[in-house]
């Protein structure tokens, strides 16, 4: 506080060690965020004859496979984010009640740390080896007389892929939500009970409002995590490119449909738009929640 007037007196443009300190940060974000975003956004509007809207309008033409893929990507991300958030939050609460530093807690948190990063080809292989057409569980179930419909469900985006995504969504939720749950003080519960509140009152009036913003934040993180996941889906789904990242992959690497690179950039731009919408919702929820909490 005392420094503020002095800073003003010296002017805003003085050479500062503090400014030098953030150079690596800005250099990093320029190279890995700003430039790629510009490449995507500019490329999305470039055609063979210069500026064009065709790349973008082509995506949303009637009966376009891309619109279906976008819808499916959003549904897949939303469903796995919601289920992952609910299950992960309950697990996080259960873990938070375990003895601090105890074996259960350390085991579950480190396991989740590993599983949350377990994705891509390795995860896909694990599921195919277990539930695929010649997978171990498929064989065991068939031997027991339980038909799993030739194991094709594992390749469907709305069945197998959802299950596979949940496999990393739930542990991720546990990790990001655990600090919030651990922030709940036992004294708050005691205070509620002293004042005559029930367990329901405690969750409804005390813990719920405190946990709501981090819960929404974590859910939106899970949404974007699933929305941008590529390698896992690529390793499982070969046909029809049902999701946006797979559509982009097709646009960039197809040896049948050529010259689609800028259409791929237009697709990537729509992903940026979806994520931007998610960020705005988060900011809005966060502001409402914090205003309410401040009262």
């Amino acid at each position, binding site marked *: 506080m005392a420094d503020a007037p002095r800073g003003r007196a010296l002017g805003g443009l003085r050479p500062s060690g503090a400014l030098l300190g953030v150079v690596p940060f800005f250099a990093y974000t320029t190279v890995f965020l700003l430039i790629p975003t510009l490449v995507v956004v500019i490329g999305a509007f470039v055609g063979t004859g210069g500026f064009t809207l065709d790349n973008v309008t082509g995506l949303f033409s009637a009966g376009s496979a891309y619109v279906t893929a976008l819808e499916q990507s959003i549904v897949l991300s939303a469903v796995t984010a919601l289920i992952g958030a609910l299950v992960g939050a309950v697990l996080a609460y259960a873990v938070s009640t375990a003895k601090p530093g105890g074996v259960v807690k350390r085991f579950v948190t480190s396991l989740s740390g590993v599983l949350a990063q377990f994705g891509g080809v390795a995860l896909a292989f694990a599921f195919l080896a277990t539930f695929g057409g010649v997978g171990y569980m498929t064989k065991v179930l068939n031997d027991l007389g339980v038909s799993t419909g030739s194991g094709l469900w594992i390749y469907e985006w709305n069945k197998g892929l959802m299950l596979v995504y949940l496999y990393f969504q739930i542990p991720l939720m546990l990790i990001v939500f655990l600090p919030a749950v651990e922030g709940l003080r036992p004294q708050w519960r005691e205070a509620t009970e002293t004042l005559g509140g029930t367990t329901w009152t405690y969750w409804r009036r005390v813990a719920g409002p405190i946990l709501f913003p981090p819960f929404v934040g974590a859910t939106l993180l899970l949404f974007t995590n699933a929305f941008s996941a590529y390698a896992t889906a690529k390793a499982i789904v070969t*046909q*029809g490119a049902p999701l946006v990242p797979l559509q982009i992959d097709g646009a960039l*690497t197809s040896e049948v449909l050529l010259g689609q690179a800028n259409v791929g950039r237009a697709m990537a731009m729509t992903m940026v738009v979806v994520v931007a919408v998610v960020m705005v919702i988060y900011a809005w929820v966060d502001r409402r929640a914090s205003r309410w909490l401040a009262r």
Partner: protein
Amino acid sequence: MNRSLTRRLTGVAVIGLAAATFAACSAPSSSSGSSTSGSVNAASAKSAADFGGMDALVAAAKKEGKLNVIALPPNWANYGEIISGFESKYGIKITSDQPDGSSADEISTAQRLKGQSTAPDVFDLGTAVAMANTSMFAPYEVSTWSDIPAERKDANGVWVNDYAGYMSVGYDSSKVPAPTSMADLLKPAFKGKVALNGDPTQAGAAFAGVQMVSLAEGGTAGDIAKGVDFFKQLKAAGNFLPVDPTEATITSGQTPVVFDWAYNNAPISKQLTSWKVWIPDNAVLASYYIQAINKDAPHPAAARLWEEYLYSTEGQNLFLKGAAFPVEYDAMKSAGTLDATAAAALPAVTGTPVVPSQSDNDQATAYLKANWAKAIG
């Protein structure tokens, strides 16, 4: 009895393909570039003569010592054996990058690594990708240039076909009954068992697979609605397996029926003796791949020597051994240099082979783009 019939049919089909190949064949134009005097610029050499003969080319390539190839799976058209054959013959080390990459990956990698020592020296491309990128190729005519039919090469040596394949259905006879028509594949015995090598809107082999089914179902290579419709029925029957088949998925039994080039399907029989290759009657689809030299090749002499090796009797017979149909087949047959055992082992076909034209492919591509995802979604 049965076997000799099969052999004879093979012979008929091969002659059929040869006839198609020679149709509209004029005298091969062999306009090799002017030979340079004095120092040799390997990057602009248009034939071995520009180096001062084969020996000088070999010496220049050995001096470079390295060659970068890209998107050549070892089990694709016998490329594994071709690569090791070249390495042991000339003592030049080959770096094989992204063996499972697509034709489009080859071009984008060459653009990305332009000017670097790791850039690909040579390409093996599908027709569509090759024709869209001819400005990236360096013209070169191999010493056997006149053995290559005129319509299988560019008049200026910018590109040249190397081998062709028939589209085929490979199946594991220990898991499924032998199919004799496309309708058989819709039966319950094939539930969850029929796979296509890739997404036809992305992979050339899968694209040709849909074209072949179209021919079998009474469509054409250009009007592929019947082919797409067949896969729609296959999906509805629960028989379509959306797995990208590889040697590993086939030998492990994950993909018991696979639509792929015969030169990919046939060699698998060596590891899985129950693996059979079937080419449906009157649905013989043949397609050539294209060979070209990167004009920014980091090892220009080695790249040219690689081409000489591929089009030598040795290289062409190695393609044939991998069940691919080498472009110099007819010339080698009349010269008596063809590997007769390998030629006899080519899969049996009945009917005239169809080589899709560019306009066929354009028409089929447009239809697939609009309808494939819906058909199997």
